[in-house]
């Protein structure tokens, strides 16, 4: 038996680094480039009017996208209100009650499928389900489409986070004579709380940038969303329409809207990171 050559190892190590470090840098570089483009082209569009005024017809200077900002917020909130409770409860079922049962296995499998379903298909599905039946596009339909996209994300993170809670904690609550539901809600849920919040925030970040599902459901509008039973303005479809238009002013606004969404998603993602870090330092861990 002979010792392996040390120089050979060092060379192999170098070679591996030479290949991998640029690959990692490439990933970051693309993101940085996108950010740079969005900021440099979009920042000019952001002014007070952008946040407070309705859009103007092509050719007319000024105006803003206040209706689209409001519409996106409304539909994201609607999606969160519908998608989060269902996702949380289904996640609790999988982690605490279903575990390895047939139903739980089936739910887990379909959730994975749903997670991989292209969002445009969800859009068409809700179009057939709600838009065709009611006869018009609406913010409701948009919110439902986004909720369907949120559901699997919330569900899986809930299950994962609850699975991270040690069985001993569950057992101690039960051993004190707590009924299963109470042990779950007052002890297990609490121990996983920050992780659950992170999951919800990530799901919100994921759907707030979706365009395809809204194209078929909420469509878009030049007016304030007085009720969400009508076509509802939103940022992503506005970006789609404005960016394709021949008007310089609209294109500029599309860049502004892109910047706004990018920053919004960035903030939500950073928030979720912060709650996660908080979890590591404070709550139930050893």
């Amino acid at each position, binding site marked *: 038996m002979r010792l392996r050559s040390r120089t050979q190892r060092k060379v192999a190590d170098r070679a591996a680094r030479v290949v991998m470090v640029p690959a990692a840098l490439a990933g970051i570089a693309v993101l940085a480039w996108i950010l740079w483009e969005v900021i440099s082209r979009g920042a000019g569009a952001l002014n007070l009017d952008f946040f407070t005024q309705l859009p103007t017809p092509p050719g007319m200077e000024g105006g803003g996208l206040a209706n689209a900002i409001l519409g996106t917020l409304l539909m994201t909130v609607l999606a969160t209100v519908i998608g989060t409770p269902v996702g949380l409860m289904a996640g609790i079922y999988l982690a605490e009650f279903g*575990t*390895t*049962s047939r139903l739980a296995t089936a739910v887990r499998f379909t959730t994975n499928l749903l997670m991989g379903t292209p969002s445009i298909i969800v859009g068409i599905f809700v179009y057939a389900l709600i838009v065709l039946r009611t006869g018009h596009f609406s913010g409701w339909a948009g919110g439902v489409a986004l909720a369907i996209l949120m559901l699997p994300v919330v569900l899986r993170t809930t299950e994962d986070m609850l699975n991270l809670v*040690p*069985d*001993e*904690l*569950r*057992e*101690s*609550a*039960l*051993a*004190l*004579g*707590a*009924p299963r539901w*109470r042990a779950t809600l*007052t*002890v297990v849920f*609490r*121990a996983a*709380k920050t992780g659950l919040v992170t999951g919800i925030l990530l799901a919100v970040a994921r759907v707030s940038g979706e365009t395809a599902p809204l194209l078929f459901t909420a469509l878009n509008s030049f007016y304030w969303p007085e009720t969400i039973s009508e076509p509802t303005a939103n940022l992503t479809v506005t970006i789609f329409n404005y960016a394709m238009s021949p008007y310089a002013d609209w294109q500029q606004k599309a860049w502004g809207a892109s910047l706004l969404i990018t920053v919004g998603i960035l903030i939500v993602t950073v928030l979720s990171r912060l709650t996660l870090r908080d979890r590591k330092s*404070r*709550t*139930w*861990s*050893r």
Partner: protein
Amino acid sequence: MNRAGSAEEARSLPSKVSVRNLNFYYGGQQALFDNNIDIPEKRVTAIIGPSGCGKSTHIRVYNRIYELYRTHRAEGQVVIDGKNILLPSVDLIDLRKRVGMIFQRPTPFPMTIFDNIAYGLKLHYRVGRTELSDRVEDALKRGALWDEVKDKLGEPANALSGGQQQRLCIARAIATEPELILMDEPCSAIDPVATAKIEDLIQTLRDNYTVVLVTHNMQQAARVSDFTAFFYKGYIIEFGATKQIFTNPAERETEDYITGRFG
């Protein structure tokens, strides 16, 4: 301090738990074989044996906590206060109020020290504010933790040290007034000084409670228990007064284990 029981005492004492022909299965794998034992009331009974011999499995039947896992199954009789608790008609919440349990690693709930103790109390009793704080104080005193935490009841329980957390768990279990306390290697994750405190605490518990202590530490069994059962490969090889088990074991396997020939 040590008042290790005698063989005569074991026979004359009323038993808190009578186990008859207990078999236990993890899925298709049998872990306990025909366990028979009578746990004397208001005494400390230690369960010793090598890893994987079924010590923890055995006591986890007493409060049916194993039922959390769908593949775990127990057969036979475990009679506590004259009632076979393995019958499906037994109310689990009532059973677990009477049978407390302490785990290997401390399990403080993610809430304040006060709320940890109050958790079990509120599960089983309707109590007003003042009575609740009296009860919490009393439980913490009996758990030998009051002096260390009385000024920080509102702080999160997981800020306590490991040994304090374990005494908190004992106080939490005591608060609901159980009659039987199961301890599953309660000192295995704790330093020697904290261990000594918990051993002292176990000594004082004996006056009011029946304690079953699973331990892989033979010195601990010798120090704190009145009676000792030796488990091996899922069988109860020998059960008797601690002094007798450690000085004059009847079975060859017990002697081999105690003298450190295996395990």
